[in-house]
């Protein structure tokens, strides 16, 4: 009897999971379906699972649209996201390690100062930030797009929590070997902390890829459009091109999904061993 109950429970769990999984996948399905439809298919009163004819030429149309440099914007976004991720992870991991491991009188104060910024909405500082970057003469430069976004309190926080739980024995051994903190960090700590680097890196990469407002106002030239800016240009005040919009959205998240699937294992491992919880 108990056995039957357990088995029934297991089956029920599987069914619930499958239903939820389908629900979670519906939006992705809609992106692809609408992206490969004609405008008439999308607005047809009769719902069809997929349009009778898949319009693969929509893809060509998207990449050859003369008014929106879509392919280029993908490259720009990739470049910016990679640079941002590398810089953020480097700076935040160093800081996180310092905060966690170097006994310094004011470390707590610094830590709380970092933590406090998590509570300030970005919209609050938007205008002053923009004016500041402009004063530096960084408008329309890659510098202006990337550098101000490199100092992520969230990333620093995650690294600090992780390094607090990092096995001290490894570092002690390094010190016995005569390595200073700098070389200990690079030779011992970093190679043994890959999961947290992967985890933070993925999250930062997603954020950088999806950033919209900052690239929009800083990159004042069409040659510096990121993919999110290009995406927004498909909706103008007058017309909305639904299929192009959906297809562009689908293409824009593709690179992220790949990054995600590759690093997922690492993210779980990174979270597990960090003190994020």
């Amino acid at each position: 009897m108990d056995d039957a109950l357990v088995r029934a429970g297991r089956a029920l769990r599987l069914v619930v999971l499958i239903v939820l999984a389908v629900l979670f996948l519906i939006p992705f399905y809609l992106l692809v379906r609408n992206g490969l439809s004609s405008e008439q298919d999308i607005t047809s009163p009769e719902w069809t699972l997929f349009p009778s004819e898949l319009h693969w030429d929509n893809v060509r149309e998207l990449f050859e649209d003369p008014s929106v440099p879509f392919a280029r914007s993908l490259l720009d976004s990739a470049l910016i996201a990679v640079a941002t991720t590398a810089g953020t992870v480097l700076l935040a991991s160093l800081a996180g390690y310092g905060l966690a491991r170097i006994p310094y009188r004011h470390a707590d104060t610094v830590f709380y100062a970092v933590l406090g910024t998590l509570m300030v909405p970005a919209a609050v500082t938007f205008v002053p930030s923009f004016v500041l970057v402009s004063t530096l003469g960084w408008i329309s430069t890659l510098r202006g797009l990337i550098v101000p976004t490199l100092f992520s309190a969230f990333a620093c926080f995650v690294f600090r929590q992780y390094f607090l739980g990092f096995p001290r024995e490894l570092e002690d051994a390094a010190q016995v070997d005569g390595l200073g903190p700098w070389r200990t960090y690079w030779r011992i700590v970093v190679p043994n902390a890959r999961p947290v680097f992967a985890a933070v890196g993925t999250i930062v990469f997603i954020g950088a890829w999806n950033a919209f407002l900052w690239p929009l106002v800083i990159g004042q030239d069409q040659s510096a459009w990121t993919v999110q800016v290009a995406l927004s240009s498909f909706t103008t005040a007058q017309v909305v091109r639904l299929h192009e919009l959906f297809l562009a959205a689908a293409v824009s998240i593709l690179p992220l999904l790949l990054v995600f699937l590759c690093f997922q294992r690492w993210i779980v491992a990174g979270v597990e061993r960090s003190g994020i919880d």
Partner: protein
Amino acid sequence: MSARTVEAPSTAAPAAAKPGPGERAVHRRRALWFWVFVGPFAAGLALFTYVPLLWSVWLSFFDAHNTVTPTHFVGLDNYTAMLSDAAFRDSLLTFALFTAFIVPATYVLSLALALMVNRVRRLRAFFRSVFFLPAACSYVVAALIWKMSIFNGVRFGLANTVLDLFGAEPVAWLSTTDPPWYWLVVVTVRLWLQAGFYMILFLAGLQRIDPVLYEAAAVDGARPGWQVLRHITLPQLRATSVAVVLLLVINAFQAFDEFYNLLSDARGYPPYARPPLVYLYYTALGQGQNLGLGSAGAVILALIIGVVTVGQARWFGLGRRNADG
């Protein structure tokens, strides 16, 4: 954000120098090393976060229409104006209610997902991926799908197609205020985007629970299911729970993107489901540049977030060093 969050770094490195002639040199060296590691980050944070932040606070005491270098000091006028603005107070209240709903909802859904994914035998990686994938989507893309395809108000919207199967009339999801269906749209988009991320946090927490505890519970006669969940799993997940709730609250109060993308149009924003940040955007920080007033509103909001967060931290005993985690 466990107990470790606010643990003083010194406990992690019990290398406090013994008093002696070299003490000051040791201190100096440590300080130097500390700043080698932390300095670049701290300098950047100071320049790109603290300078704009303090600038904003400074602006909030001035009449700053269309300028960031105002000269007309008005004291607390902007604050009194903001607090006596019924629409702003409304937005704060709406958002307290929204937070009170979305935080438990996300918490329960992501925990349930984690528990189920953790116990499932086959396809675990598949389920984990499926629930986690939405976290890669931007609010812009998600809002596009929700607004244009699932919850549009006409016949060919997915939700209305489903309603039609049951013979029901199409519903204008985002446009009706009675009943307020727009909350369904806003809440589901947020759940879809966020649940997977928090599920991962819970999964990590679950995997750290010592299996011995479950064995002991079984020996004690606890029935699998609710009893085990209540007496073993949840207490063991306490640290994770605290972190999740804190992040959820901060995120809820800073809500802007999905609301803006779902409900705004070229002419503005309806007076309902209007988060404080959206209201500030329309009245002060976006096109109408009343930067003093907007900054005052933003400072009020940041203070509320801060007080709630600290209060929560106290409530959960986050400051206690010996809390498990």
